[in-house]
């Protein structure tokens, strides 16, 4: 019996060692050290009428809320490698530094860094001078002022790339699931005609969060032209970038293989000195042909009442 016990113990120890050693010998998981947009792969499917087929589940609303690395890219800071970064808008070189600690940042350190990183890009809408201070104050007081707080819709262009696009010959359908937590937003959907519709005169429209949108194709690019907004949204989660009810947004969607590139140009002569174009964002098609959008959590704002500082990212 003792030998059996020893053998059993030895076998057990060996098994334990194997289970311990084997993972240690496995290659460490590959970590991305850049935030470069995903590169396209595969071919671009086309519909019967010859246009690129944008149908599918994309990593939309989104795409601007999914983590600091992506948020930095959306705001124009491209980290190309551990030793190279640049500002997409200005072309300026941004100095990189190796991390000098492996200690995880605590929440406060992480949030403060995120706030700085997301605001460091050069691509900013140019408001008329009388609004400069207002924009600064809205951003500084975003915990109180951000119009999407308390579960209001993000609107356009803040919605970015929709999470789902359904394409028919005469219309496209965009779905933007809601979000929970501090960035709580309401689910949005847009049904956009492609049949040559003309815009309703702006004076005949009651402003809405997503406005009145009409689409058309310019080559392989879907162009969505929207106006008729209310003034209750911002251009982005950061910045305090408000707009008037006269805002006019032109979005461009271009599919290349399994990627979808989106930009939006905002015109609002009431408050902007010149049109402003977002930094291009790139989403990847969900490779699962059976992918669906899960139901969004009910939007219930529970964080704002607990915020005691002006910090926010």
């Amino acid at each position, binding site marked *: 019996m003792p030998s059996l016990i020893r053998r059993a113990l030895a076998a057990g120890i060996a098994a334990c060692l194997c289970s311990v050693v084997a993972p240690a010998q496995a290659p460490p998981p590959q970590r991305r050290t*850049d935030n470069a947009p995903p590169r396209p792969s595969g071919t671009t499917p086309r519909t019967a009428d010859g246009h690129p087929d944008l149908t599918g589940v994309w990593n939309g609303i989104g795409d601007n809320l999914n983590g600091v690395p992506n948020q930095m890219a959306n705001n124009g800071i491209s980290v190309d490698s551990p030793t190279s970064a640049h500002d997409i808008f200005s072309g300026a070189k941004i100095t990189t530094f190796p991390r000098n600690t492996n200690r995880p940042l605590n929440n406060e350190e992480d949030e403060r860094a995120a706030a700085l990183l997301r605001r460091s890009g050069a691509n900013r809408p140019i408001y008329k001078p009388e609004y*400069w201070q207002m924009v600064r104050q809205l951003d500084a007081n975003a915990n109180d002022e951000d119009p999407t707080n308390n579960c209001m819709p993000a609107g356009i262009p803040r919605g970015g790339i929709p999470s789902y696009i359904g394409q028919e010959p005469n219309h496209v359908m965009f779905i933007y699931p809601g979000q929970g937590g501090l960035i709580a937003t309401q689910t949005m959907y847009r049904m956009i005609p492609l049949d040559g519709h003309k815009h309703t005169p702006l004076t005949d429209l009651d402003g809405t969060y997503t406005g009145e949108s009409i689409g058309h194709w310019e080559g392989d690019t879907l162009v969505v032209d929207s106006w008729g907004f209310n003034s209750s949204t911002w251009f982005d989660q950061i910045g305090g970038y408000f707009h008037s009810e006269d805002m006019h947004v032109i979005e461009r969607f271009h599919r290349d293989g399994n990627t979808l590139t989106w930009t939006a140009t905002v015109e609002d002569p009431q408050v902007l000195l010149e049109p402003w174009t977002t930094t291009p964002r790139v989403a990847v098609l969900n490779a699962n042909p059976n992918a669906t959008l899960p139901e969004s959590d009910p939007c219930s704002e529970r964080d704002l009442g607990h915020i005691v*500082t002006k910090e926010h990212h």
Partner: protein
Amino acid sequence: MSVSRSTTFLCCAMAIAGFATRAAAQAKSAPSPVVPSTTASGTADRAKILRGAADALGMVRWSDIGGGNTRLPGIDVINTMEFKATGTSYTAGQPVPAEYDVELAYNPPGMRVQTVRSGAHTIQTVREDYAWDESELGAGLVPGKGTATPQVSAAKDRILQLWTLPYGVVKAAIAAGDKTIVSTADGATVLTFPLSGPLSGVTVKATLDANNFITRVETKSGDPALNTESEYSDYADHGEIATDIKSPAHIVRKQAGRPVMDIRVKTWDANNPYVVFPVPSNIKKAAAPAGAAAPHQENQ
């Protein structure tokens, strides 16, 4: 440009009181001998010193919130800032109480200094190679709203102030690459490097304290208006929104050996606030830029 004009502008940017005596004493003392660093690796030493200076200011940051499997390096997060200060400016050697509101950016380089002295409000702005005065905030951008007056000859003087702030010193020293020399003087670390672009010919000497904060910046040039001395002290996070970016609360500045300002910072917003410097069309017409005002990047 004339010294008086640049002095007038410099008066619109910085510092006050207790440091005046010390600054004067330092001005009278003989220059400290600069001893080249004797460490084994100049490149490694320089990188370590610059990293230390950047870390002291809180310039190097990263965040993994929602990053999943992405692990980015630290990057220089300093772009835009705004600080408000009160203090003394000197006109013809005479101190005058003044209030300041300074907006600045490094990408693209720009600075706007609003000053109120003796009830007079001035706004002096520079973006890269363009310099102008604004009769009101953003003058000249909207027809009928204020006048933007070109100040072509003030561009170097104004943009120099951006690059002699602590953040500008670190950025420019990194950009100068191998031309940045690390040495010691009186036990303190000293960085010496040339500026480039339109500020070519200007040499910067920056002194660091034991905590790697930049405490003194001198610039030398053939143009007396570009010979400046700045002192920075009382570093802390002075923002209403905490960022962990450290900024000086006390700034003293001299030009051509004469005191021009001495200010105490009230707030310093380092959270990359909304600060923009669109160039009015008449300013663009008045002066075609000779080149980028940012120091050229080398070896970084």
